[in-house]
């Protein structure tokens, strides 16, 4: 199976703090990978490296065969321009913990901002697609609302639609339900399950072990900047071999 996203020997420091230590990772097209682990273990930083919101210090990440952030010449990697990086970012959609919808734009404007403003696709086509996406996340009647008028769960579903509107090759979810009231978590996970079922390539950083069990093809456990263990949900969640994983799972449950 060809890998859609690969990371090789990825290193990342915040000052002297070694956040990501020698991460090797690959995800195939259509695969759903959940990353779990204690806070501060580098899960979110890893996602942000894939989307180039963080610069990597060593190693490399490739999306669909293209090294991100750098132009390769032999052994040498030269930094790409902001414009090139912006183009590469379109290949992966990102959903943030705190939604980050644009509060001064309506739901519909939030969704078409990328395809129309950035990808320069015809406005009317994009509005049509946006309405289809809104229907898909169950918010067809909220097109003209402002984000401030929506609940957290509704905002996060719009954020998912906004990322999907770019037609990304993969979707990254950075703790998408952690900022939600408990009764709103289900509606967001529901949308994500539907996405997974439709064959979307997804990397999900989450604390929702139930979601991992149900949806993930593979679960990674990260701790202190390393991928400590990985396997099927059954292997990681039901019968963890690694003692650190075992501790974490029993603490969460």
């Amino acid at each position, binding site marked *: 199976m060809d890998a859609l996203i690969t990371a090789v020997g990825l290193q990342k420091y915040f000052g002297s703090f070694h956040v990501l230590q020698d991460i090797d990772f690959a995800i195939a097209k259509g695969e759903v990978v959940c990353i779990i682990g204690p806070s501060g273990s580098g899960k979110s930083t890893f996602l942000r490296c894939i989307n180039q919101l963080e610069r990597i210090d060593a190693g490399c990440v490739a999306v669909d065969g293209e090294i991100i952030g750098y132009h390769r010449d032999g052994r040498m990697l030269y930094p790409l321009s902001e414009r090139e990086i912006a183009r590469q*970012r379109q290949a992966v959609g990102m959903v943030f913990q705190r939604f*980050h919808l644009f509060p001064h734009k309506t739901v519909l404007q939030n969704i078409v901002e990328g395809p129309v403003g950035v990808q320069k696709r015809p406005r009317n086509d994009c509005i049509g697609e946006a309405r289809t996406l809104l229907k898909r996340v169950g918010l067809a009647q909220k097109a003209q609302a402002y984000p401030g008028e929506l609940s957290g769960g509704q905002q996060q579903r719009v954020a998912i639609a906004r990322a999907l509107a770019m037609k990304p090759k993969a979707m990254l979810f950075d703790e998408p339900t952690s900022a939600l009231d408990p009764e709103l978590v289900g509606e967001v996970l529901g949308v994500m399950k539907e996405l997974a079922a439709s064959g979307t390539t997804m990397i999900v950083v989450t604390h929702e072990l139930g979601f991992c069990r149900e949806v993930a093809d593979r679960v990674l456990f990260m701790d202190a900047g390393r991928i400590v263990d990985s396997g099927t949900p059954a292997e990681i969640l039901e019968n963890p071999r690694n003692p650190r994983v075992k501790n974490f799972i029993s603490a969460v449950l």
Partner: protein
Amino acid sequence: MRERASSTPFVIVPRRKTWTKILGLVVIVLLALLIRAFWVGDIAWSYVGANLFSPSVLRGVVNSIIMTFCAMVLGIVLGVIAAVMRMSDNPVLRNVSIGYVWLFRGTPALLQLLLWFNLALIFPTMGIPGLFSFRTVDVMTPFVAAFLGLGIQQGAYTAEVVRAGILSIDKGQTEAGLSIGMTPLRAMLTIVLPQAMRVIVPPIGNETIGMVKLTSLASVIQYSELLRSVEDVYYVNSRVIELLIVASIWYMVVVTVLSIGQIFVERYFSKGWGGHGPGQPARQTLTEEAA
């Protein structure tokens, strides 16, 4: 007070606000005395009326408005540039911006106007050698000197206002813009600045009102704005107070109109915050706190 229906036998008696009433009365009497003092004082009100709409005074009003507008436009343009430079990664740009704000906030506006007006003393001619040159006195008219002096010092203040506005926007907004493929510049222009405007507009409105009055400084370098034009009248007829009252009335009129305009501008930029007026808590923040 009407007695409200209640299931208890008690009746609540409103507090008697005796001292409130006495204090209010005293203040009203004092105000009345003040107004009377002005009324019987040696003010020939007919001169106020006669000069309020005289062509030279109106020309002064128009010139003050033109100068306010031009200086604020220059100030805002310079302010945005300085704010963005201040937040840049490039240390040269950053320090030039810091130096600009330091220099032009550090000296009085009046002094800066005099410096610009007298620039010819340092540079008798200006231009690019071999291409063109001109005599500085020909170019540095009162209007140009006031425009540069007021606009450039305004830019130094506006820079800080704009920077505060940009800083008030969550970094996540920029990241969300980047994540849908925007360049940093595009994210700044279409996502961050429009939201920052909500924070920037009230202080800029304040500064614009300040600028209306600051233009009066240009009277010392012969720019015929409002104060200068009433001065020209009272040098002839000696009705100093009457003409200063005329100027006061016009400044008040312009400031009032601007204050009303500010309400509409703020309403425009509060889009997405549920049409809340300034000072109201943004609904966005409320839901985020709840979450």
